[in-house]
């Protein structure tokens, strides 16, 4: 990849294992969002609320678990409950989204836009806008542990992507996502339980977002009330650069992973290259736009 060469020219630090691990660790949480969003895009839905789920799920856990006095937690549950609560909140959000989208037939973009605002608001509400800290050690573990010399969050991210590649490419369930995204009526006629698959995908997506939130909270040892805000733009940019179609039925997990890796490497190179802070945003955006245009030109077909 060209980026490696450019990176090496910009700074010899770029290709050091240390730096690459740094890039991977920084991107691991958002990569999980990309994974989740990719699944959801393949079935021709979208979930904008993910970025809020990523903040709210660990936020609620912290709120219930962090003892009174230390910040503004309620201290209602022992520390060991933090992870189950985080994941349960993720599932709950997914179930609400799935209900509104599948059962009530509401447009996914609209539902999850509404949810994005609500969930963000709820986190501000329970946290009073403040950051939760003194999290229980169970919440910190995954985000901060190091396994075989590499941060646990990198392992988790890689294992989940590998699993997703296998599931999407080599199982009936995975293929059914593509079928649903390509033509939902045809999928139904082929005996795929489309509603059930859609629900599983949406709920799993929220669950992954909650997990991503857990990792981030663990890494930062806190839950900020703005955790995750603005991530959704990056998630979509990565997915699209990775070749995922917004019209469903197309794209691979490997592509999605490459997309997010590319984005974070570019940011890393810009940082190492000492680009003035105020121009980094514009450069980053230009690179995204260029990547899109190039993938259009090489991809050939007009996107609709």
């Amino acid at each position: 990849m060209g980026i490696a060469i450019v990176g090496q020219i910009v700074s010899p630090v770029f290709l050091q294992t240390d730096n690459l691990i740094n890039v991977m660790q920084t991107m691991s949480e958002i990569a999980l969002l990309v994974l989740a969003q990719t699944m959801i895009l393949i079935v021709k839905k979208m979930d904008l609320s993910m970025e809020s789920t990523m903040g709210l799920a660990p936020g609620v856990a912290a709120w219930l678990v962090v003892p009174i006095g230390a910040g503004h937690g309620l201290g209602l549950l022992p520390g060991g409950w933090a992870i189950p609560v985080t994941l349960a909140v993720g599932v709950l959000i997914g179930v609400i989204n799935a209900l509104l989208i599948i059962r009530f037939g509401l447009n996914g973009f609209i539902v999850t836009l509404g949810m994005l605002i609500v969930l963000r608001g709820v986190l501000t509400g329970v946290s009073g806008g403040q950051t939760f800290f003194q999290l229980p050690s169970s919440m910190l573990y995954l985000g901060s542990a190091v396994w075989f010399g590499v941060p646990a969050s990198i392992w988790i991210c890689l294992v989940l992507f590998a699993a997703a590649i296998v599931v999407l490419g080599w199982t009936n369930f995975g293929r059914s996502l593509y079928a649903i995204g390509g033509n939902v009526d045809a999928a139904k006629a082929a005996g795929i339980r489309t509603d059930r698959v859609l629900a599983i995908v949406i709920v799993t997506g929220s669950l992954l977002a909650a997990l991503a939130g857990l990792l981030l909270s663990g890494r930062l040892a806190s839950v900020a009330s703005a955790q995750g805000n603005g991530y959704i733009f990056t998630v979509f940019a990565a997915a699209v650069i990775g070749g995922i179609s917004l019209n469903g039925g197309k794209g691979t997990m490997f592509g999605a992973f490459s997309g997010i890796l590319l984005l974070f490497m570019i940011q890393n190179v810009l940082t190492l290259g000492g680009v003035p802070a105020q121009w980094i945003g514009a450069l980053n955006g230009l690179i995204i736009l260029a990547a899109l245009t190039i993938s259009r030109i090489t991809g050939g077909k007009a996107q609709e």
Partner: protein
Amino acid sequence: MALDGAWITIRPGETHALVGRNGAGKSTLVNVITGLLGPDEGTLTFDGKPAPRLTDRDAWRQRVACVYQKSTIIPTLTVGENLFLNRCDHGRGRLIDWRGTRRRAEDLLSAWSVEVAPGTLAGDLSVEQRQFVEIARALSFGARFIILDEPTAQLDGTAINRLFDRIRDLQAQGVTFLFISHHLQEIYEICDMVTVFRDARHIVTSPVAELSRTELVAAMTGETAVVLGGERVSSLDADATAALSVQDLSGSAYADITFQVGAGEIVGLAGAAGSGRTEVAETVVGLRAADSGKVEIAGSRPRPGSVPAALAAGAGFVPQDRHHQGYVPAMSIADNSTLSVPARLGRGGFISNRRRNLLAETSIEKLEIKTPGPELPVSALSGGNQQKVVMARALADEPRLLVLINPTAGVDVRSKEFLLGKVEETAETGTGVLIASDELDDLRLCDRVLVMFQGRVTTETRRGWHDHDLVAAMEGMTLNAENHD
């Protein structure tokens, strides 16, 4: 529900035709029989046993295979995967064995002599290939009862013959068919029994041989049929400027096309799928631009590749596929039928709703569109009536040239007769008509038929041709009445 006390009995081994006008409930019945829809009332039995539960798709598919009217191909997946969707081979560790699946797909495709690689994206297939993939897939389940809902609507002559050969093979093996088509001659060709539906009710079931074509049409429409194809006196006005003059037109799908359509003349442009007839017609109305050559509509040369210019020059246009290019489903009949004549609705770009509705009401009356009023969205109409709206738009500006592509595709007999009758009426007012179609019924009323094969006009014939000669010409054989045995 779209069905009302409907019933049908199909005996093992027979080929049963189901006919009825658009919206009669045929496809709905198919959905019920194949387990996609549950009946509100009534029962369904296979071999005397009650139907499986709706959720048990596999059980359904062992009993009945179906080619639905709407495509059930998934364009983003490969042909091979489409064939074995949700039932791929599993290899070790419950993972899909792609190589095995691919081999089976190859076998299946070659059995059907569909010449596509299993790795091709289904979205890249031609209409015919796609249709055959659907049929091959439906039959590959090994069910002894097969439903074909308008399988021939999008196929040309050769393809239909291949399909019928295959059906006859299976008939010989004792497979049962339920066959739906608006082409009545097909019913007589391969079916034993026929059932007629009208307004979601069962009207009659009878052996095909005992029901004449006229009786059949009468049963479908509930009224005595008008006989179509009676002698028509040509309304060609040789003195007036030609409505259309095409010279040396060459483009990606055709070459060296030269012909004229006189004022008041009806000219057919026949040809199999891929012969270039649709492309020529679309070039005439400006949907495409030719590489070279010229198109003159009623004496003026509109800018190539511009629909508005062609319309301004006096063209009216019924596009190939009404769902795709014909109408805007959410817009009202009034808007759809006046979409291409804004200038007649008011001044300075403004639209007077009163004038629009007046214009639309005239069309509704003239074309007998069944609607409570001009404000109804077109999506709420049946297929035949939707096609009439498209026709109304083409006629709205009293065109000098009317270009029709497959004007009666998927339209029931009655509406077909009606629409073609309107075309004749229009020609009598001095309008030149160009009909690009492979449907013999559409071509029968033409004064002349030009046959295209592989992008060139190979044959020209006057009225009075024999069906088989024209079909042969469309398939690339020269039409020569003298030498025919």
